């Protein structure tokens, strides 16, 4: 286990790469570090690798500080985004390079290189030099060179970000399988929500150098600690509505900002309110609500269709509600017209409640997953 203890990295006088990071990397875990650019993701990897030293704090492996251990003695394998390949060597030699330091026979090295090349679908590139490869090909070689040898920790900085969709899906699967088969410990950095969810056993979400939340995909998706995590995990991002609690004939209701509609406040939510009038927002995921062309008992809130995005298997509708936009996913056959009124199944019970951007309450999980026009259930 590797622990980051109060790790800060300061550049210059006031700029922090990361600030007071505290989390652990468990043995044989696939940990994804996720966040926008400037969050400190790559800085964290470089600190782990020993390429840069923290300004304060400690990195501890199995009870011993790693700070005085040189990068090459940390038994970590790295693949960074700028793929520093040896330009004078063929792809084959680039892949074999990390194996030469080990007492491995030529035959064994050859076999490993072949196997890795097959996994990464670069077999026909083995005799080329890096200068003759496309960006996506170089990225695969760099990934291969990092993961070809056993290491106590693999550090992968956006290793598949530049690949086309087909290859990215394939490599995502290969990475996941590799972590399972080798019982490897992997830390991977990404800015893509789906990649983070698909790969991570746990996801650490960073923003401006601070750790926002660390947890399983389900935890950060269903129980985000704040609006940032809520809006950054999941696709399309969560929609938010400003609300004001007010008493309506003795009954507590949420008035949606700049909108005539009110939402009933269920008992279990009412107890979380603190008497304040401002600072509350409700959040809802596009897949957590449904729409209807008519008002009915479960579709009580009207919205005006503003934007329709066609995703093939579904449509994402952005509906205007007061000043805000609420995204909702519909089947691809449902294509409302711009300006049309639709009714949303908004209901405080199935929404996330935030106060001053911090989460107060999450809905209980009772969803069926994404609807599609294809078969989504088990075989009939």
């Amino acid at each position, binding site marked *: 286990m590797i622990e980051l203890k109060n790790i800060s990295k300061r550049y210059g006088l006031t700029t922090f790469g990361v600030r007071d990071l505290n989390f652990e990397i468990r043995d044989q875990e696939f940990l994804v570090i996720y*966040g*926008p*650019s*400037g969050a400190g993701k790559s800085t964290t990897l470089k600190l782990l690798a020993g390429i840069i030293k923290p300004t304060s704090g400690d990195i501890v492996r199995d009870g011993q500080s790693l700070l005085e251990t040189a990068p090459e003695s940390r038994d970590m394998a790295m693949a960074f985004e700028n793929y520093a390949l040896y330009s004078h060597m063929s792809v084959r030699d680039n892949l074999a390079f990390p194996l030469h330091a080990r007492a491995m026979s030529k035959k064994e090295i050859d076999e490993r290189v072949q196997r890795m090349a097959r996994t990464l679908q670069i077999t026909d590139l083995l005799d080329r030099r890096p200068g003759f490869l*496309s960006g996506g090909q170089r990225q695969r070689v760099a990934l291969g060179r990092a993961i070809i040898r056993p290491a106590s920790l693999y550090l992968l900085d956006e290793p598949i970000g530049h690949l*086309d*969709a*087909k290859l990215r*899906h*394939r490599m*995502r*699967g290969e990475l*996941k*399988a590799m972590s*399972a088969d080798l019982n490897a410990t992997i830390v991977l950095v990404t*800015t*893509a*929500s*789906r990649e983070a*969810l*698909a*790969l991570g056993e746990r996801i650490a979400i960073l923003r401006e150098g601070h750790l926002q939340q660390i947890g399983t*995909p*389900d935890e950060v*998706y*269903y129980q985000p600690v704040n609006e940032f995590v809520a*809006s*950054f995990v*999941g*696709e*399309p*991002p969560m929609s938010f509505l400003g609300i004001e609690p007010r008493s309506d004939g003795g009954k507590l209701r949420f008035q949606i900002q700049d909108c005539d509609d009110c939402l009933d406040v269920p008992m279990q939510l009412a107890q979380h309110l603190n008497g304040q009038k401002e600072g509350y927002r409700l959040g809802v995921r596009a*897949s957590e609500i449904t729409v209807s062309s008519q008002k009915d008992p479960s579709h009580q809130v009207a919205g005006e269709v*503003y*934007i329709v*995005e*066609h*995703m*093939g*298997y579904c449509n*994402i509708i*952005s509906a205007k509600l007061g000043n805000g*936009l609420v995204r909702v996913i519909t089947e*691809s056959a449902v294509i409302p017209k*711009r300006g049309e009124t639709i009714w949303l199944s908004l209901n405080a019970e199935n929404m996330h409640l935030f106060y001053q951007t911090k989460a107060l309450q999450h809905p209980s999980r009772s969803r*069926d*997953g*994404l609807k*599609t026009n*294809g*078969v*989504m*259930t*088990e*075989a*009939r």
Partner: protein
Amino acid sequence: MATITLDKVSKTYGNRVEAVKSITLEVKDGEFVALLGPSGCGKSSTMRMIAGLEEITEGTISFDGKPVNNLRPRDRKVAMAFETYALYPTLTVYENLAFPLRSAGWDKAKIDEKVQEYAKLLELGRLLDRVPSDLSGGQAQRVGLARALVREPACFLLDEPISHLDTRQRHRMRQIIMRLHLEKGFTMIYVTHDQEEAMAMADRIVVMHEGMIRQIGTPAEIYRDPADDFVAGFVGEPPMNFLEGSPNLDDGQWMFRSGDRQFPLPKWMQPQGDKLPSNLSMGIRPFDVAVSTDGNTPHDAAGEVFVAENLCDYRIVAVDMTDVRFQAVTPTSFSVNRHQPVFLKFDPAFMRFFDKATGKAIQTPRD
């Protein structure tokens, strides 16, 4: 605003590299068209010829019926937005936006009106007094878009404007760009390698590959009735699965035979069974593949689980068969382990077939 016509337009670099091969295309007034394809497909060269930044080797580009081949870029009234923006570093955001209008000789009140209008559309209201060095990447980009647009061009060209943004910013920009289109009615041409962006935003998509147009259609047409196996594999996330095989008449019914698998060809293909090419490729999207752990349920194929990915909204299960790996989308409640045997059923309504020799789709009947 303008209708833009490309008539047999080609672009050759030097005397050998043919980047664009005789493409013909009409972008209607006010239409949002995406040029979609992998790197090197000719989409950026096409856009640069429309903008006037590249010479047209052959063919004609017309705006509202008038050829523009010999017009300089600034006389074509196009605005172009790139992934990176060169803002004036010493000017505030407001001044950056006002600059092109001032040089065009607009009066102060009109300039202010336009700047405010575009500041609102691109959500720059609170940033107007800042200088570019105080802006985040996403903010600088929105300023760049606004500056390209304040002069209200006949056509707005965007080249991969959001591909470097993170997921959340990308969705926000998607809404902003679509709002621009809806509110201002610009004719928009949007170049991207990201099929999801093209699908989400465009009225029509032009799929390009190796300098040629492979298909032009609405997002729904491209997704559901791809013209060939390239379009089929390039559009859709997760990507379409393919299985190679042959038509086979079995007991009076036309079947698709692939290795030791065999299942009936869809009803609409039965009458033309004897006219089908002998080598076919069947394509089916992961959303249209059902998975079961029970071998007694009717199924079209069998394999074992390679990995399962939990995307919280749904799960993607990769299934290894002897010759090929398939992906299937399942509800999150469907739980499987690695190497577990599973059985696949393909929804016949969404199976698509391609001639293996030419890649062309076997035409599905229109309803």
